[in-house]
């Protein structure tokens, strides 16, 4: 019996609102207890260029896309035929070839596409989109305004599609109505009506009943969340108590900040749109020093402007900020709205000199939630900048998750100076004692304002390697800080002994962090220990890798997956052990040079020769990885994967 799953796609010019229909459909399916993986591909353009939204629905968990589409809805000619007819170097050949055997193509009868002679073996359903909209409008006496309601093509697309796959239209209607509340409910009704008319039209004009691809709601629907990565990132920041977020618009990072901007009133969070990323990072550093939980978000080009500020945060031991760095297609401006994992090496060495920072790359929404939450703890406990590295796929893919939970949910603010504990003078110089008692120090000597017989030194050396931080405004907590090398009191020094001690003070935090972070948050070996092939990867490819492995498992193939998550400090020993135990290794990355591969070799000496790389700005499909893993099981070498669909 055919499984209860379907892939549906809608394509059209940007600005025509295909997002709306795809997301309505996705939500309806999720509410019906089905699993959804929906992803959009679009240009760095506001209106007119080709974009498409693919919604994969299944009863089992899905974390990636398949290349076959069962129902394709085309709002324009390009969606079917590609752009070779009007671009010198065509960028795609349209989506017809992706339609499953016997699958359906619903297209707007107005776009002048003639399917006689088009690809055989699939079904074509020309639908008069505007006529249907007009009809719906006429019923409320607005017939002549049809053009103003063009965006309703999206509900027509939905209605027509459901007529084929038989998914209950009511569920979709419910979602639509939920989106048009209050005085806009009239519009909602209008949309529902149009969807219904489209549904009826297809039922009447075509033999829809015989359509082979169908989708039913789950027998016992389970309430799930349907979310995008940027939303989860934002919620994680709220959950972590983040007070302050700075940003400068840039795809695909902007959405997180705009989402947070909307929550300012309800959650006492301040979001500032800055003049550029240099300002974003430095405002965030200033805020962190002032004692709040501070964060920012950006992507490659913006991060390139933040590097100076990251070194500044590190040498001044600022308790943050947390930087969410959304990777996109590079280099330079590159492919602003496309996928790539091309920034790892850059983020690992983001500025001059040796300094400590943390870099972690979550692999799915749950990990995004946990890692961003934990990042704020690490930033304050260890007083350094923490970088969380998702990418466009994680930010934008719309997927179902069972409820959002934190495995490690404690808030840790680290050592702080409250006026009671003073730095024991003996300890304030580590080997230098408290210095020789001459000028210097923050001046809080016995009896002075702020009291206490000892003094507070912001950069004092201490047993556990961390100096308590003081919040400006705290009586007696006064200190200096500088981006130059400094003494325990924060004044500039160029002395060799103090320099070496301060370098150790800062760099020795890395081993401390490695100890503090739970192992399962550093890396994870998914699947059987004794697999024939061990896939090594990171970040958003996780879902695709697991989906591919699952399918191959069903074919009896034994593959496991080493997911690297904590990139700095890197768990070298443990990863090395796993790699050396593996029968065969294959690296999976969405970049040109295999940047994780380089890190792994640098840290463990292990060279992974079999590499499955993709750098065309699109994520791997499940199919691509299945094929690549099969090859990898037998052969060795580099496999460059290039998208064949979309």
């Amino acid at each position: 019996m055919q499984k209860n799953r379907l892939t549906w796609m809608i394509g059209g010019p940007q600005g025509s609102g295909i997002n709306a229909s795809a997301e309505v459909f996705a939500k309806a399916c999720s509410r019906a207890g089905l699993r959804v993986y929906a992803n959009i591909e679009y240009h760095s353009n506001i209106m007119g260029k080709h974009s498409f939204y693919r919604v994969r629905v299944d009863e089992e968990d899905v974390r990636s896309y398949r290349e076959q589409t069962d129902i394709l809805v085309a709002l324009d000619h390009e969606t079917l035929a590609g752009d070779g007819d009007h671009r010198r170097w065509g960028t795609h050949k349209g989506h017809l070839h992706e339609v499953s055997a016997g699958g359906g193509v619903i297209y707007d009868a107005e776009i002048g596409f003639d399917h006689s002679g088009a690809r055989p073996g699939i079904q074509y359903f020309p639908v008069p989109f505007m006529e249907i909209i007009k009809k719906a409008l006429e019923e409320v006496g607005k017939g002549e305004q049809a053009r103003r309601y063009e965006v309703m093509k999206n509900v027509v697309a939905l209605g027509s599609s459901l007529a084929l796959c038989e998914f209950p239209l009511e569920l979709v209607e419910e979602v639509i109505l939920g989106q048009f509340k209050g005085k806009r409910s009239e519009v909602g009704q209008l949309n529902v009506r149009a969807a219904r008319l489209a549904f009826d039209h297809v039922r009447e004009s075509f033999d829809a009943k015989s359509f082979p691809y169908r989708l039913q709601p789950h027998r016992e629907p389970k309430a799930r969340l349907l979310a995008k990565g940027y939303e989860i990132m934002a919620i994680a920041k709220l959950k972590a108590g983040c007070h302050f977020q700075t940003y400068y618009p840039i795809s695909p990072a902007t959405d997180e900040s705009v989402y947070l901007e909307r929550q300012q009133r309800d959650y006492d969070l301040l979001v500032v749109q800055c003049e550029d990323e240099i300002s974003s990072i430095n405002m965030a550093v200033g805020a962190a020093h002032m004692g709040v939980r501070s964060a920012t978000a950006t992507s490659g080009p913006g991060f390139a402007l933040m590097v100076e500020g990251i070194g500044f945060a590190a040498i001044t031991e600022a308790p943050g900020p947390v930087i969410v760095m959304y990777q996109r297609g590079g280099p330079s401006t590159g492919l602003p709205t496309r996928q790539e994992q091309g920034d790892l090496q850059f983020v690992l060495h983001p500025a001059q000199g040796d300094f400590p920072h943390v870099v972690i790359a979550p692999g799915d929404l749950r990990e995004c939630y946990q890692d961003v939450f934990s990042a704020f703890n690490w930033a304050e406990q260890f007083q350094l900048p923490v970088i969380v590295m998702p990418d466009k796929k994680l930010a934008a893919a719309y997927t179902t998750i069972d409820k959002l939970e934190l495995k490690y949910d404690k808030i840790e603010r680290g050592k702080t100076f409250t006026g009671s504990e003073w730095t024991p003078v003996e300890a304030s110089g580590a080997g230098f004692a408290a210095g020789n008692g001459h000028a210097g120090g923050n001046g809080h000597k016995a009896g002075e304002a702020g009291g206490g017989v000892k003094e507070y030194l912001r950069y004092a050396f201490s047993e556990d390697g961390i100096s308590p931080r003081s919040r400006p405004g705290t009586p007696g907590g006064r200190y200096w800080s500088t981006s130059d090398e400094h003494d325990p009191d924060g004044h500039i020094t160029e002395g060799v002994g103090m320099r070496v001690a301060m370098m150790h003070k800062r760099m020795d935090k890395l081993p401390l962090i490695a100890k503090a972070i739970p192992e399962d948050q550093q890396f994870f070996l998914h699947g059987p220990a004794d697999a024939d092939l061990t896939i090594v990867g990171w970040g958003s490819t996780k879902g695709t890798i697991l989906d591919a492995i699952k399918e191959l498992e069903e074919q009896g193939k034994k593959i496991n997956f080493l997911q690297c998550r904590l990139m700095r400090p890197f768990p070298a020993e443990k990863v090395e052990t796993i790699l050396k135990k593996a029968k065969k290794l294959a690296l999976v990355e969405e970049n040109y040079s295999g940047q994780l591969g380089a890190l792994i070799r640098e840290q463990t000496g292990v060279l992974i020769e079999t590499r499955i790389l993709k750098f065309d700005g699109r994520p791997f499909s499940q199919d691509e990885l299945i094929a690549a893993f099969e090859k990898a099981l037998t052969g060795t070498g580099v496999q460059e994967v290039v998208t064949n669909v979309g």
Partner: protein
Amino acid sequence: MSVSAPVKFTLKDYKSDLHNDWCPGCGDFGILTGIQMALANLGLDPDKVAVFSGIGCSGKTPHYIKAYGFHTLHGRVLPVATGGRLVNSGVTVIALGGDGDGYGIGAGYFVNTGRRNLDFTYLVHNNNVYGLTKGQASPTLSKGKKTKSMPEQAIQDGINPIAMAVAAGYTFIARAYALEPKYLAGIIARAIQHKGSAVVDVLQTCPTYNDLYTKEWYEGADLPEKKSRLYKLEEQGFDGKVKDPTDKQEIIAKKAAAVARSYEAEPIPIGVYYEIELPTYEDAVNQRIPALAEKPLVELDTFKRDVTPLLEAMR
């Protein structure tokens, strides 16, 4: 920053014990004193003051002041100070730095910070040179001029900081002279008390590299009969303060007047060029986040948030 603490601190309460490494006779000493005098006059608790600086000779200033001191990055002092001020309105924030730091590499932040009218004070040590890098032309040195260590004369025009500040939207714009610390202190005190973004361009001598605009030059020692090359705006009855902030015409007139004065080269006007009381960035932020009207952001408990409504919206 409007302040009303009883004067209970004296000059020495703002002096750190650190050995000072500026050149003998550097104008920065005057500015340092001016700041300390202003803080003393206002009686601000050193533990409630944060001084932020850029990089340069001037950037070392916070180390010599007893207060929270942040010696940041070259050209980035305004963003860092802004971040600090935004999250902790309980602390008086003073930002300062060199003319290269503020008007050159930092020009973008100088301009964009002016648009916010954040309640803080910014002092620019204007010595016409890049001191710490050994005397290259700073953005305030005008075309054709050549100081000691420059191989060629300046090939670009000097910037007009006052006109820039007006265009950028600062709400308190003044100029003072480093070697008149008392007057300078008065201006700084007003700047700190001003509710909104205050900028003070401080004419500073650099005996080591600036051999054009020296103490003697400012004093007009070279003139037929010695006469200061500075005059005080108020002494000529100039009043830069906007009386009715709702009166567009008055604002335009006062801005135009400030700009006109800012181009006077000899003698150079010092004092307050422009002043207006307008709602601050903080006011706007407090409307957005009512809780901030009670306490600074840093004191809000943000750790008990209930995000379920946001999750519910995802069902």
